[in-house]
């Protein structure tokens, strides 16, 4: 919220502290000042323009609309002829001396206007180049010194503070509230501006009637009537003040109500009273089918049951949110009904939500305004309107207040203060803080506590601990000494499983990055159609997604990775290896079942072309065996055993080049393979992309092997090779199994060392394989004879099982 230091001075007449200090004090008091905006020196190029006071105004003898003024510019008095309607004796303006240069029209010269000498000129905003307003001369604050050069004056005109008011402090959404806080924090004198009202003889009840039909939603409704106002532009000071706090000037009546809102925090509304049918104001709930054209000129169908202001016939305003166009104050308006009310916050939030409308008024009502401040604001606004728009104020005001509550009281047990804050604050200090805050504290009989009457504007205070915060805040967080509680570890409730699971994820991360994969983080929500690429079944949908394409909670991490690959391809990277660690989401099966969140890791590798490298280490085309090798590598690093890869169709992958990953042959823990061409096309990815996804939760909870030592032979083993032709449908796994099972005792390992499928030397439908077999006996060094015997058995088995042709 924008706070003007000038306006604050209405409440804090002695406020002279530098703006930086004020900002600091507010920030450390809980009202963060986000920006300090000095109302800047206007580099208009004007020279010779100074502040000056008009000391006498007389009618021009020869012209009706001209005035002859005496102007004091600090150096002397000058006679000036002026045509502005707002020139008044005693007021201060900006004065261009003879010889001055002004942005709008060159140099000011001595002149003779209809027979009267004029030595200088009083300037309008337009002439100063500030705005296009030339309806009158620019008034400046009366406490400004005279004789100050316009360009120097500017930086002192005002300072605006952008203050962040937390939602618990609606009382500070106004200059009044901020001033009250500042007075406490700075110890400055706080004054309430005086309100003087001249009332007419005619009583308000003679023209207006209020029927409060929804006392729950509107515990208090007040109003005044002013007859015969003259609608027009606001005076300069008002326009300027509104402009500085970010508000647009509309007309004098609307500006007055707006000004009071920002001044006192109470939203007001002025109705064109002649348009209020029967002079009757009803506060009631809307009925089905009712409509209202709001002041933004949109016709709105009103949802039934929201709070409206109505006349005898129809709704004329959305209570607390926005006025209606028909009763809006217009140029021809003469009589106004001025409303000031206290609406129940919940009711205004409902209206705001139902109509999707929010305003400065609804914001304040929704958070809670001061129920006792309603009439003060009403009277202040009435005074201001009489001042700037004239008219006659009907005697008395309407005050319908069925919801009056007695002041709240809280008891604060003083030792609690130290128990929570850790610092001993003398009771007198607490007492002083509460008194300054406008609370009425009374010491309890035994002196151990304070009974505190909470003022009506502090509805946020509900519990004793809220009072402790008030003490801490005003006392100063900075003055509370830092201490360290005993840092002895308390391991009794050690969350071992969570700790290990977290570390497992970290290890996965290190292993994949070691394999050249970079970690990415993508959004957990994707489009519904992407969500179907890799898995069927139900998904969780966000009812209010941020945008299209972000409506479903991902069931797989792969679409996010595809987007990452596509993005980086467009950036012309050609070695793309990524992984992500994160959760996937599925609705639970059955009605009451919990939503399933699964920790997963997925990765993708795409290579556009071989990277240039002098040794071409990476020159090999990335293929499915590279992917499998990387996964196997990671499994070893994670101490995962009993993992096998099985060819089987996977949704979104190329059939034949993809499969499932199983633990203990039973639990499917993941998938891997080549992404289907149709999927690549969808993401505009040209090169082949290999991908995998693993369920970390299952792997973590089941797969980790327990390490156990077993003794090993101390003598050497031997390696013998065997090569053969075999039908190409026979798999490596099958062959290796037969080799290993030929002698479980002596054969320790069999490694594939060659695979050839070319046309030369190999007949069609066959492949040539070579294995290196590692022979080792548990108790002695093997002789050639022993090995030859087993090796022959291997060859026999292979011939028998797969009809291989051994190559000699």
């Amino acid at each position: 919220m924008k706070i003007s230091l000038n306006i604050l001075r209405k409440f804090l007449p002695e406020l002279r502290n530098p703006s930086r200090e004020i900002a600091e004090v507010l920030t450390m008091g809980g009202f963060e000042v986000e920006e300090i905006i000095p109302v800047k020196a206007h580099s208009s190029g004007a020279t010779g323009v100074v502040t000056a006071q008009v000391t006498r105004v007389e009618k021009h003898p020869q012209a009706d609309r001209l005035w002859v003024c005496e102007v004091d510019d600090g150096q002397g008095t000058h006679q000036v002829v002026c045509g502005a309607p707002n020139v008044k004796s005693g007021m201060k303006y900006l004065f261009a001396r003879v010889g001055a240069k002004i942005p709008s029209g060159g140099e000011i010269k001595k002149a003779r206007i209809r027979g009267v000498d004029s030595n200088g000129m009083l300037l309008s905003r337009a002439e100063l180049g500030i705005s296009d307003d030339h309806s009158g001369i620019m008034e400046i604050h009366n406490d400004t010194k005279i004789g100050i050069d316009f360009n120097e004056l500017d930086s002192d005109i005002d300072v605006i503070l952008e203050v962040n008011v937390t939602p618990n402090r609606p009382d500070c959404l106004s200059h009044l509230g901020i001033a009250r806080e500042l007075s406490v924090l700075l110890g400055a004198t706080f004054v309430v501006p005086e309100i003087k009202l001249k009332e007419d003889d005619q009583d308000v009840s003679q023209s207006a009637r209020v029927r409060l039909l929804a006392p729950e939603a509107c515990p208090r409704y007040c109003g005044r009537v002013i007859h015969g106002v003259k609608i027009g532009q606001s005076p300069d000071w008002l326009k300027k003040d509104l402009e500085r706090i970010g508000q647009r000037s509309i007309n004098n009546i609307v500006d007055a109500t707006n000004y009071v809102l920002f001044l006192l925090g109470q939203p007001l509304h002025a109705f064109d009273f002649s348009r209020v049918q029967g002079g009757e104001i009803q506060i009631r709930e809307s009925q089905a089918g009712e409509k209202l054209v709001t002041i933004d000129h949109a016709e709105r169908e009103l949802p039934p049951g929201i709070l409206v202001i109505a006349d005898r016939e129809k709704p004329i305003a959305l209570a607390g949110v926005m006025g209606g166009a028909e009763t809006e104050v217009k140029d021809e308006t003469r009589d106004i009904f001025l409303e000031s009310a206290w609406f129940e916050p919940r009711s205004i939030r409902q209206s705001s939500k139902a109509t999707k409308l929010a305003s400065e008024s609804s914001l304040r009502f929704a958070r809670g305004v001061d129920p006792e401040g309603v009439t003060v604001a009403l009277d202040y606004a009435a005074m201001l309107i009489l001042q700037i728009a004239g008219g006659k104020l009907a005697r008395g005001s309407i005050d319908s207040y069925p919801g009056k509550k007695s002041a709240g009281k809280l008891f604060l047990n003083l030792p609690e203060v130290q128990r929570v804050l850790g610092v001993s604050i003398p009771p007198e200090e607490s007492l002083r803080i509460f008194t300054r805050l406008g609370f009425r504290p009374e010491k309890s009989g035994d002196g151990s506590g304070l009974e505190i009457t909470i003022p009506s504007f502090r509805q946020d205070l509900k519990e004793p601990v809220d009072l402790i915060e008030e003490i801490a805040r005003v006392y100063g967080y900075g003055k509370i000494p830092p201490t360290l509680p005993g840092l002895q570890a308390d391991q009794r409730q050690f969350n071992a499983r969570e700790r290990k699971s977290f570390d497992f994820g970290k290890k996965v991360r290190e292993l994949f990055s070691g394999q050249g994969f970079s970690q990415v983080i993508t959004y957990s929500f994707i489009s519904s159609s992407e969500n179907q690429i890799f898995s069927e079944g139900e998904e969780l949908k966000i009812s209010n997604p941020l945008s299209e394409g972000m409506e479903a909670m991902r069931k797989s991490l792969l679409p996010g990775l595809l987007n990452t690959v596509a993005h980086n391809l467009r950036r012309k990277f050609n070695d793309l290896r990524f992984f992500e660690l994160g959760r996937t989401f599925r609705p639970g099966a059955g009605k009451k079942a919990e939503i399933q969140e699964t920790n997963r890791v997925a990765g993708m590798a795409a290579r556009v072309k071989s990277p240039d490298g002098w040794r071409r280490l990476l020159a090999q085309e990335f293929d499915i065996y590279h992917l499998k090798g990387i996964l196997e590598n990671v499994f070893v690093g994670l101490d995962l055993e009993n993992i096998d890869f099985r060819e089987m169709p996977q949704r979104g992958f190329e059939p034949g080049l993809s499969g499932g990953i199983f633990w203990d042959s039973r639990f499917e823990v993941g998938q891997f393979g080549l992404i289907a061409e149709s999927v690549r096309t969808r993401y505009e990815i040209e090169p082949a992309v290999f991908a995998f996804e693993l369920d970390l939760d299952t792997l973590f909870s089941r797969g980790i092997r327990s390490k156990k030592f077993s003794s090993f032979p101390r003598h050497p083993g031997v390696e013998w090779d065997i090569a053969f032709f075999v039908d190409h449908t026979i798999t490596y796994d099958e062959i290796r199994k037969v080799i290993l099972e030929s002698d479980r005792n002596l054969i320790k390992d069999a490694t594939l060392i060659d695979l050839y499928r070319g046309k030369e030397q190999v007949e069609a439908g066959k492949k040539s394989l070579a294995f290196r077999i590692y022979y080792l006996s548990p108790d002695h060094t093997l002789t050639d004879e022993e090995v030859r015997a087993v090796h022959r058995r291997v060859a026999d088995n292979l011939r028998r099982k797969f009809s291989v042709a051994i190559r000699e």
Partner: protein
Amino acid sequence: MDWEKKLGELESQVSELLAQAQKAEDFFRIKQQFLGKQGEIAGLLRGIREISPELRPIFGQRINQAKQLLEDRIAEASRQAESRQARGGGETQDLTLPGVWNPPGRIHPISQALDEICEILEDLGFQIADGPEIETDFYNFEALNIPKGHPAREMQDSFYIDDEIVLRTQTSPVQIRVMEKQKPPLRIYAPGRVYRRDMDVSHTPMFHQVEGLWVDGGITFSDLKGVLMLFAERLFGEGTPVRFRPSFFPFTEPSAEVDIGCRICRGEGCRVCGNSGWLEILGAGMVHPGLFRRVEYDPAEYTGFAFGLGVERIAMLKFGINDIRLFFENDLHFLKQF
């Protein structure tokens, strides 16, 4: 005799000889010929008597320089020849060639920042805790003193699955889940993804938070300050200025926002810190008694403090990143910098 000219000749003579030299004896011979007792340099020095006395110091200096130069050159050439010999004299190896390696992938900067935060908290005795990312309205709001219609719900526009199920907007619900299961004393932290309906230079609809909670008999606001000051100094360096200012969170009372002195301007005021000289890093406060009542802890017996911080914010400050959306664009130009 023109000794300047003579010196020049000696230097080029040495260069020629060195270019042909192969074996250690060759170098030894060259050294003898020029730098030995009967060598050329010594010979030149003997001629000093013929030089006028006033020029003698200059002459001596020059000779010594030349001597040093020749010594260095011979030594260098001999060393090179030796290493050539050691490699078998054949093809030379250029060890400046790039190593053959498989470049490792990078760890996402968010993970890196998160690791650092977690490590500090572990050192302070906090234990990790976890909770779901999709939460019920109860855990995300109600239990944290944010009933339906509470103005604080405006602060965090949320994503809903349905009326009762929400993507968690903060890691704070983990506080409730842990307190429901465990009795004090407890000291936990909970890292994870959170979601809010917002997107601009400083907001993304998904980001990461770390929540901390310490509950025991006798925990005070002073303790909150002490622990978080220690945390901030570990994270941002010793001597980092830290300040606590009043703020509002529905689930803590009193509440505070914690700022560190701006790292860019050192407190002078700059664009990054909005001229304030301070940068907000986390929110904290004393656990509201309402939460304790909800999990059946006795507020008269226990007090505690909680804090929450945005990991992206910390990473942005630490790495000087100015647009939060970069974290989720996953551009390799970006990822490779960390």
